[in-house]
C-alpha cells in the first residue's frame, strides 16, 4: 500500500545462514534491540491478555487487588498475633514482601510458557523473540500495579510515609532488567523441556519459605550473612529497605548487582545458542 517509489524505499532483507557463536551473540543482541524498539507491540499484547482474562467479570482486574488484600490481611494479622510481633511494622513489611513475591512468582511461572503459548504467531510470522518476553513482563507489571493499590491502602491505614524513594529508581531498573533475563531463560527452557514448568513451580514454592518474605532476617538465630546466598534476598531488600527506612549495607547492593549480572550472562548465553531453535521445538 506504499505509494513511494520502490527504488527509494530500502527493501527489507532476510539473510539467514548457519553462523558461528560470536555472530549468534550479535543476532541475539539484534533481536533484543528490535524487541526494545517495538516495545509498544509487547505492551499492546499484554494489555489484551489482561483485558481478555477479566472480560465479562464485574470487578474485572480489580479482583487481583481484592485477592491480594485478603492474602496480606490474613498473613499480616495471623503471624503478627502468633509470633507476638508489632502489628503495624510487621503488616507493612509483609504487604511489600508479598506483593513483590507475587510479581516474581508470576513472572517466573508464566515465563515457562512465553513461547509455547504464542506458538501460532511464532510459526506464522517472523518477529523478534524478545517481543514475547516483553509481553510477559508487561503483563506481570500490570498485575503488580493492581497490587500496589493494596500497599497504598495499608500505608494510609497505618499512616506511614515511605522513608525515601530515591533508591527505588535504580532498584526498579534492576528488577525490570532481571525480569527480561528471567523471561528469556525460563521461556527457552520451558519450550525445550516439558518438565521445566512443574519443576519451576515446585522450586518457587520452596523459595517462598526460604526467602525472608513472611519472616524477617533479624529473627534468625544464626549468622544472617548466609541469607545473601539466596539471590532473591538482596533484590527484595533493595526495594523494601528504602521504603521502610532501614539501612541497606553496600554488600546487599553488590550482591543484587552481582546476581543480576550473572543472570544476564546466563540469559545471553542461552539466547545466543538456542534463539533460532525456538520454532523448531514448537
Amino acid at each position, binding site marked *: 500500500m506504499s505509494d513511494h517509489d520502490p527504488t527509494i524505499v530500502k527493501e527489507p532483507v532476510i539473510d539467514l545462514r548457519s553462523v558461528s557463536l560470536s555472530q549468534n551473540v550479535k543476532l541475539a543482541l539484534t533481536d533484543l534491540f528490535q524487541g526494545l524498539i517495538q516495545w509498544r*507491540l509487547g505492551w499492546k499484547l499484554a494489555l489484551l491478555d489482561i483485558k481478555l482474562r477479566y472480560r465479562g467479570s464485574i470487578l474485572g482486574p480489580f479482583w487481583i487487588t481484592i485477592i491480594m488484600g485478603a492474602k496480606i490481611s490474613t498473613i499480616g494479622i495471623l503471624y503478627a498475633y502468633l509470633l507476638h510481633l508489632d502489628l503495624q511494622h510487621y503488616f507493612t513489611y509483609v504487604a511489600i514482601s508479598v506483593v513483590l513475591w507475587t510479581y516474581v512468582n508470576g513472572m517466573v511461572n508464566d515465563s515457562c510458557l512465553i513461547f509455547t503459548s504464542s506458538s501460532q504467531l511464532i510459526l506464522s510470522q517472523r518477529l523478534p523473540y524478545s517481543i514475547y518476553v516483553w509481553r510477559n513482563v508487561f503483563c506481570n507489571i500490570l498485575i503488580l500495579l493492581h497490587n500496589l493499590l493494596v500497599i497504598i491502602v495499608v500505608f494510609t491505614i497505618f499512616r506511614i510515609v515511605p522513608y525515601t524513594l530515591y533508591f527505588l529508581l535504580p532498584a526498579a531498573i534492576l528488577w525490570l532488567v532481571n525480569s527480561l533475563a528471567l523471561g528469556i531463560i525460563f521461556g527457552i527452557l520451558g519450550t525445550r523441556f516439558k518438565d521445566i514448568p512443574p519443576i519451576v513451580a515446585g522450586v518457587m514454592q520452596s523459595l517462598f519459605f526460604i526467602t525472608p518474605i513472611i519472616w524477617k532476617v533479624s529473627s534468625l538465630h544464626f549468622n544472617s550473612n548466609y541469607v545473601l546466598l539466596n539471590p532473591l534476598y538482596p533484590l527484595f531488600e533493595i526495594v523494601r529497605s528504602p521504603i521502610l527506612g532501614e539501612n541497606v549495607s553496600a554488600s546487599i547492593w553488590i550482591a543484587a548487582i552481582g546476581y543480576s549480572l550473572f543472570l544476564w550472562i546466563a540469559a545471553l548465553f542461552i539466547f545466543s545458542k538456542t534463539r533460532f531453535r525456538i520454532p523448531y521445538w514448537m
Partner: protein
Amino acid sequence: MPSITVKNLSISFPLYHENTRSLRKMTHLFISGRLRQDQHKKILVQSLRDINFTLRQGDKVGLIGQNGAGKTTLLRTMTGIYEPVVGHIRVEGSISTLLDPNAGMNFGLTGRENIYLKCSINGYSKKQTQEIAESVADFSELGAYLDLPVRTYSSGMQLRLGFGLATAIAPQILMMDEWFLTGDAGFIQKATKRIENMVQNSQILVISTHSAETIAKWCNRVLWLDQGFLKMDGTPEEVLPIYLNKPYEEIVKKD
C-alpha cells in the same frame, strides 16, 4: 528488486519426545531414510534436504509434492521463521504469508480488535490500519458481528475475517498455502477474485497446492518436492505431466 535465493538448504527437526511418537510412524520415517542421528546422537527428521533455487521478479511458483514433502517447512523457511542450520537463504522484498487463516487471531477478542492487533503486529501506520479495517469489513460482510468476539463466529465467518485480513495488503512477495480454497462456492469465487488481484500485484508468488488447475492458471514455474528433496524445477508444462503421470493437455482440459 525482490528475489529469493536458497543455497544448499537443509532443515531437520530434532525429535526430543520420540518415545511419544508411534512406533509405526518411526518405522516409516526410518525406512524412507529421513531419520538420522547427528554427532550428539540426537534423532533428527530431515524435512528439507539440500535444496537449491533462485526466484526472481515475475516468478509465480507452484509448490507441489505429497503431504509431508516439506512444502510448509519450505514456505516457513523462506519467511524467516525457521533459520537454517545448514545452507543459506536470502530474501529481498516485503513478504506476506497466508499460511493459516487463524494465524495470530485471538478468539476472545472481537473481529475489529483482531484487525487492529494484526495491524500492529505488522507495524502498519494508523492510516493504513484504517484502510485495512474498512477493506476487511467490506470483504467479510460481517456487519455488526465485527464487534462480537471471534469465538461466536461460525467457521465460515472466521474464514472470511481471516482471509480478508491476510489479503488486505499486497506485498512484493506473497507466499501462501492452499487453505484458501476451502469454503462454500460463493466464498471461493469471491476469494479467488481477491487473490487474483493480489497475485497480479505481487512480484513473486509462491503457492503450495495440490490443484493442477491453480498452477495452470497462476504459475509459470513449478517446484516439486519429494521426501524433502527438490525433485524437479521447471515450467508447469514440463513438471506436471511427470508428477501426475498424464499428458499436459489432459490435465488442463479435465479441469
